[in-house]
């Protein structure tokens, strides 16, 4: 219950922020917002001891029984880690934003988006129902879109926002298809239930497709190659946002998904190879490209891509453990997952700190271009220390937490080479070499961050603002992260025992409680450990490469490096736009007349075709009541009105004749004893006639139609056919009952819904969902009309979007 509520608290807080912002138009509003993640962090942290004991919590709001969709929250070790990251890093980021964003920015909007994101992200990691998870998943994409486009007057921000939205949302839709396939196979949307029953479905043809589609969702979200291209462009967002969404939390949603689905798909060869090879290649590609960046934020973006690849590949390697069940080997392979979870936490600490450092540089100096920075150590000692800690941890050096997880990464790779499953053989060696090379590049760009920014020559003339240390408030958040970086190195096992152990049990439900599933993390393995040798190799080669960077820089300009995925994406986008424009122009003529022709022709073909196809055009008049004289009169009035409308000379006459038709129908309802309908019809007719009169007031005079006789004939034919079909349809419905009428059900409405008026009990109770959504649609339509008219471009006025 507490957990379910904790998802909603950010959303509720987001509702109140604008009201608060009206009162307090200053950066102080951030302090109020800060309370939300702090409170949530404390709440989630209070679960740590019991979760560490192996308990899990779940709570269900029953929702849509027929579709199997319920609001189920589930807290276990895995979701706890992510929940703590989301709220913990969230608190630090908000604390940092209070000082980072100036008061001129629209802070209210910023915090609303941020809270929206926080709630959605908590929803993703705490939901057990796949459909609910999907909705929150897309909500994170949307809030990310809004945050990237926070400075929407910049063209690049809009481009980056659109790009990230397109890529992540299309991945999300693929994932939705995968979820539906899983549901078709297993008959449930609950992850926990699927985990239990999936074993019997692995041979179904849908199984592999579901796996691929879910992976597509995870890879787009977690910026894996070749979908990584959105992440560097997303760096147009304000730096706190980049630190929060695009390095610590949102991009890890894909990793969460992979971890969550490991018990379902893990142990399959396809899953093992796809996840680990995509991860390894992304790791290499990201770190290789990070080196050539001159913008520090872009460098960090590529570095994030590469680190995400690292974690992803570890989850891939770890999934092999599920293939064998309980065995000594399984435990060894499962260590990869342990390393992945550990690195996940470590990455959030050091990368968060680094992003904040870059934000400080940008904020204080007005640039984040590596070529213009240098020699800042003397001016910004605290910032320098944080950058040093963060970068060295990223490079995998002691005494920082990155060293521990990096060593475990190497160990897992070495173990993977001995894997007896899936014909690993040479693949394992390739993985090992590529990953090692990637780590060398990681070392190089980590050094670039530290040495090119803080050492070397100070160039005051190339910096826009005088250099000085950042204000205290801005340094607090990154300092906390930096302390964590060191703290985790010295006390890694407290994290291991309290957070990683329950999370491992969540990823490996079958291995839970096995001896040695969660190892003791130690920094020192002895001289003959391969991991240590690999680290030493990384340092030596990395240092050499860093020293002689300008000699091998040319590698980035030779052929394969200039093939650009971004260009391909843009070209694709333009092509799509052009093609859709072309097709739309084919039929969107802008004449109401043409559209009516489309609508009625479609109607004739579909409905007429259905009637012909089912052969249900036999009429049965035997049950019909005799037609009385006054009914003939009403019909006659309608016929006359309908025919005269064709020959009306002015719009006014036509509207009134149309009104005659409407009121005649109301009369029919009276004759047939349907007072509700008669009332509704009469009032609707009154209001719409008034509305028509109003609208037509603005239209020019009705000109005589001048079109060739052939068009007129065709239109007449279509009109006639449509009328005939409606008549036939009405008669068929009366004569052919294909199934029993359900109206009996509503007859005891007084017992079921406590109302004697059946129509209203249907509207307000039996089908209240329809009514509710209709009300919402009506409201949206009203607002739509209002905005279209009030906000339209005045003559010679400026378009609102251009301002």
């Amino acid at each position, binding site marked *: 219950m507490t957990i379910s509520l904790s998802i909603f608290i950010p959303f509720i807080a987001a509702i109140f922020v604008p009201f608060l912002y009206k009162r307090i138009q200053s950066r102080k509003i951030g302090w109020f917002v800060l309370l939300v993640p702090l409170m949530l962090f404390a709440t989630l942290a209070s679960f740590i001891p019991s979760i560490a004991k192996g308990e899990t919590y779940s709570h269900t*709001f*029953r*929702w*849509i*029984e027929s579709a199997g969709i319920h609001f189920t929250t589930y807290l276990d070790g895995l979701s706890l880690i992510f929940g703590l990251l989301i709220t913990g890093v969230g608190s630090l980021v908000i604390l940092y934003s209070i000082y980072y964003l100036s008061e001129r920015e629209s802070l209210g909007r910023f915090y609303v988006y941020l809270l929206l994101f926080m709630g959605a992200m908590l929803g993703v990691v705490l939901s057990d129902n796949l459909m609910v998870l999907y909705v929150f998943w897309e909500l994170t994409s949307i809030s990310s879109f809004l945050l990237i486009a926070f400075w929407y007057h910049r063209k690049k921000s809009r481009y980056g926002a659109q790009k990230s939205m397109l890529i992540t949302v299309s991945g999300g839709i693929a994932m939705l298809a995968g979820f539906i396939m899983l549901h078709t196979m297993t008959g449930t949307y609950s992850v926990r239930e699927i985990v239990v029953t999936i074993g019997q479905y692995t041979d179904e043809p849908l199984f592999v497709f579901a796996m691929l589609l879910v992976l597509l969702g995870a890879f787009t979200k977690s910026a894996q190659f070749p979908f990584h291209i959105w992440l560097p462009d997303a760096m147009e967002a304000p730096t706190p946002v980049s630190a929060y969404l695009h390095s610590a939390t949102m991009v890890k949603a894909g990793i969460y998904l992979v971890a969550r689905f490991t018990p379902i798909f893990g142990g399959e060869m396809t899953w093992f190879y796809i996840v680990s090879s995509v991860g390894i290649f992304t790791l290499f590609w990201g770190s290789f490209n990070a080196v050539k960046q001159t913008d520090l934020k872009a460098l960090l973006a590529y570095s994030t891509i590469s680190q995400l690849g690292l974690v992803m590949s570890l989850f891939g390697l770890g999934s092999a453990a599920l293939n064998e069940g309980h065995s000594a080997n399984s435990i060894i392979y499962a260590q990869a997952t342990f390393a992945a979870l550990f690195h996940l936490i470590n990455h959030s600490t050091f990368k968060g700190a680094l992003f904040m450092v870059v934000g400080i540089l940008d904020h204080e100096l007005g640039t984040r271009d590596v070529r213009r920075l240098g020699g800042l150590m003397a001016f910004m000692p605290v910032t320098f220390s944080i950058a040093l800690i963060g970068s060295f941890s990223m490079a995998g050096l002691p005494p920082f937490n990155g060293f521990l997880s990096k060593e475990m990464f190497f160990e897992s790779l070495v173990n993977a080479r001995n894997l007896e499953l899936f014909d690993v053989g040479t693949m394992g060696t390739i993985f090992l070499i590529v990953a090692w090379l990637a780590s060398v590049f990681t070392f190089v760009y980590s050094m670039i961050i530290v040495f090119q920014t803080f050492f070397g020559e100070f160039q005051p003339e190339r910096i826009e603002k005088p250099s000085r240390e950042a204000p205290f408030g801005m340094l607090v958040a990154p300092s906390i992260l930096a302390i964590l970086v060191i703290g985790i190195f010295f006390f890694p096992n407290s994290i291991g025992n309290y957070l990683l152990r329950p999370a491992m049990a969540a990823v490996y439900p079958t291995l839970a409680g096995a001896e040695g599933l969660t190892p003791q993390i130690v920094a020192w393995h002895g001289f003959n450990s391969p991991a240590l040798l690999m680290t030493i190799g990384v340092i030596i080669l990395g240092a050499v490469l860093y020293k002689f960077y300008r000699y091998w820089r040319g590698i980035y300009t030779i052929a394969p490096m200039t093939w650009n995925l971004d260009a391909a994406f843009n070209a694709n986008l333009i092509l799509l736009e052009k093609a859709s424009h072309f097709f739309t122009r084919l039929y969107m003529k802008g004449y109401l007349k043409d559209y009516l022709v489309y609508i009625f022709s479609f109607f004739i073909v579909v409905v007429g075709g259905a009637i012909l196809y089912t052969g249900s055009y036999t009429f049965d008049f035997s049950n019909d009541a005799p037609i009385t004289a006054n009914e003939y009169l009403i019909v006659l009035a309608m016929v006359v009105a309908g025919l005269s409308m064709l020959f009306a000379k002015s719009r006014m006459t036509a509207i009134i004749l149309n009104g005659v038709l409407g009121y005649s129908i109301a009369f029919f309802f009276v004759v047939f004893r349907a*007072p*509700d309908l008669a*009332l*509704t019809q009469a*009032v*609707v007719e*009154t*209001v719409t006639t*008034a*509305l028509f009169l*109003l*609208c037509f*007031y*603005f239209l020019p005079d009705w000109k005589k139609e001048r079109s060739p006789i052939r068009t007129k004939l065709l239109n007449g034919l279509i009109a006639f056919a449509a009328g005939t079909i409606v008549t036939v349809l009405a008669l068929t419905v009366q004569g052919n009952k294909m199934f029993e009428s359900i109206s009996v059900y509503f007859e005891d409405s007084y017992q079921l*819904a*406590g*109302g*004697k*008026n059946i*129509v*209203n009990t249907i*509207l*307000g*109770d039996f089908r*209240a*969902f329809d*009514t*509710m959504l209709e*009300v*919402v649609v*009506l*409201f949206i*339509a*009203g*607002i739509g*009309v*209002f905005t279209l*008219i*009030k906000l339209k471009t005045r003559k010679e006025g400026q378009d609102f979007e251009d301002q």
Partner: protein
Amino acid sequence: MKINDVILQTVTKIVVFIILTFGVELFLSGHNNPGGGFIGGLVLSSAFVLLYLVHDIETVHKGIPFDFKKIAALGAFLAVGTGIGSALFGKHFLTQAAGHFTLPVFGETELSTVLVFEAGVALTVVGVVVTIISTISEDV
């Protein structure tokens, strides 16, 4: 659009109240007799439309200083809110509850959450219809 018709204006002043009363009556009787939120709302809004037709917009706005957009929003909120309300009590979404109460003036009366739901429907209808008609007619 300004019509200067004294007879129409005088009649309207009385008729509008009759229509409004009728609208409320329809709304309340909807549970067991013909009527209900949608029709009630439409009748209420037709009263406002009549006012707009007879007097000009500024006069009406002076007399009825509501923002009808907000009324529509309130209506949509009530309609969705009753649904969420039932979920908060552990029932299915949009489950309606009813009970019999003894009120001072009305005697024994049945009150139910459908009333709130229908009130939401009625308010949305009134709000949207009046918003649409007044925005279009203001846009000259």
